[in-house]
């Protein structure tokens, strides 16, 4: 955009220098954790004096951490399995209805993403407490599904809007009912968006901490809840190991999604 000013090198250097600093600020906390996770000592010295896999062993050897990991993975999978089909149906509905009805539905479905997590968390806690369901996987699951639906909608809605609906009309004219047209024509062509929505719904659940903190308990505690409790108590380098693993997984997932989108 600013190539109209090729001679203004000082401004360019200042702008990019500043930007580099801001980007460093953004990257630093994620990156600093990596070397610490391989450190021998528990003093969080930087750079570490010697390296080991001690903290990874600690993580994988701990029954508590493993139970949290297991809960989080199950919860993430269930969340994606429930939220994405629901979001797909709702997005088809919004796409076909259009107008005020679609805006109203969209407003309701996206609302949970702007309501502060703490409010959803304590409200859900009250509701579940009244039913005696606090601490169950179900309670956390509905909370996560509600947060994952907007995320999936944000991926699927534009994908459906870009979709060539003439193809659905063509399929219908050739004899296909609605379900056949959706399953045979829309879903196969939107599989990349579908995959993105699924992964993002999964990550939403995996990353969610506030609802888990209030609603999950005991052996149903999620990994983020355990991490939160541990952070509040002391700075345990095991968290550095978890963080490194986490970042690695997220980077791989994001890479897969972006690469598949390109191809």
């Amino acid at each position, binding site marked *: 955009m600013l190539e109209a000013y090729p001679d203004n090198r000082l401004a360019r250097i200042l702008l990019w220098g500043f930007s580099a600093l801001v980007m460093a600020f953004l990257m630093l906390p994620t990156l600093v954790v990596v070397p610490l996770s391989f450190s021998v000592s528990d003093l969080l010295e930087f750079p570490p004096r010697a390296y080991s896999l001690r903290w990874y062993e600690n993580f994988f050897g701990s029954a508590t951490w493993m139970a949290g990991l297991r809960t989080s993975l199950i919860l993430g999978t269930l969340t994606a399995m429930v939220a994405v089909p629901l979001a797909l149906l709702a997005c088809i509905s919004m796409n076909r209805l259009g107008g005020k009805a679609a805006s109203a539905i969209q407003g309701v479905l996206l609302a949970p993403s702007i309501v502060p997590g703490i409010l959803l968390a304590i409200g859900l806690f009250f509701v579940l407490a009244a039913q005696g369901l606090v601490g169950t996987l179900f309670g956390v699951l509905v909370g996560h599904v509600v947060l994952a639906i907007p995320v999936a909608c944000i991926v699927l809605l534009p994908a459906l809007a870009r979709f060539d609906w003439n193809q659905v009309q063509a399929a219908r004219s050739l004899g296909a*009912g609605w379900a056949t047209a959706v399953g045979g024509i829309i879903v196969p062509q939107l599989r990349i968006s579908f995959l993105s929505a699924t992964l993002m719904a999964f990550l939403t659940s995996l990353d969610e901490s506030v609802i888990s903190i209030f609603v999950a308990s005991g052996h149903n505690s999620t990994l983020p809840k355990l991490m939160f409790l541990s952070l509040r108590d002391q700075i345990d380098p095991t968290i550095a190991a978890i963080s490194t693993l986490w970042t690695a997984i997220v980077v791989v997932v994001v890479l897969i999604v972006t690469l598949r989108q390109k191809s």
Partner: protein
Amino acid sequence: MKSLPITIDSVRKAYGSYVALDDVSLDVQAGEFLTLLGPSGSGKTTLLMALAGFVRPDSGKLLLGNRDITRLAPNKRDIGIVFQNYALFPHMNVLANVEYPLALRKTPKAQARQQALDTLARVKLEGLAKRNIAALSGGQRQRVALARAIVFEPRVMLMDEPLSALDRNLRETMQYEIRRLHDDLGITTIYVTHDQREALTMSDRVAVMNSGRIQQIDTPQQIYDRPSTRFVAEFMGEANILAPGSARTIDGGDASRETLMIRAESFHLDAKLVGRDGVALEARLCAKAFRGENWLLTLALDDGQEVLVCIPAALASGCAELAAGQRVTAYAPAEKVHAIPGAIA
């Protein structure tokens, strides 16, 4: 394959205060090739989509043969449709696209395969069965869309500007082939286009639409030579609409008391080429342009009306010498002079 007549009876469709179809009635005979012709927004595509079942009319009836299909789901209508952008399924190859309607009808696999291959051969696509849609040219896509629309032997076919995406040479080839396919199959066809030449070339009858109404339904020749409204006259080509009293007969007789339509190419500059009952216009030459196969002259009558005159190059020996401002007389034979009923110029 037995084809069916189509009856469209007083179909209305409004979007808010905008009336897309204003009490449209139309009978299409079994086996006929009928074209809906009109500018964009005239309602021709809306009418086609109502027949297909994708636009729900507010009122009126649609019949295939004796069967009322007004409220029938689109997938139950058994109508072959060729969409404007073809709407081929990009995640299926050519063969799978053509087999799709047969699979939905639970046709046995082997039979479906044979039928699809036969149809592909019919549209000259043998050998491309395993191709991806993305690897096809525009003309080839057009043929796949045709094959897919006829493979399940529908008794009516609808085509929505199917050639608009093709270049001119290919269009002419495809016009011929679509017409040939229609004649082979004898399938009742409604064809939508905004290209009047295409409509005239291909159709048994043409229905000209404007503002949600059918202006005229007739054979191509009648539509061209005997338009019933000023709109049809002007939409179908270079038409001169002359106010009553602006023309005289060659033998000096009375001026016409009606509004006349004379096509630009009906004129001659030589009185001998026109019978004694023809029409003559006294005018001044405003501009002339050489267009290759003909000359286009712009004349001005004494009352200011502008008249376009188109002289074939073979008969235009004197045109090159004409100068602007010069007085000219243009003659047209009586059979090419058409009075527009009830029109006020």
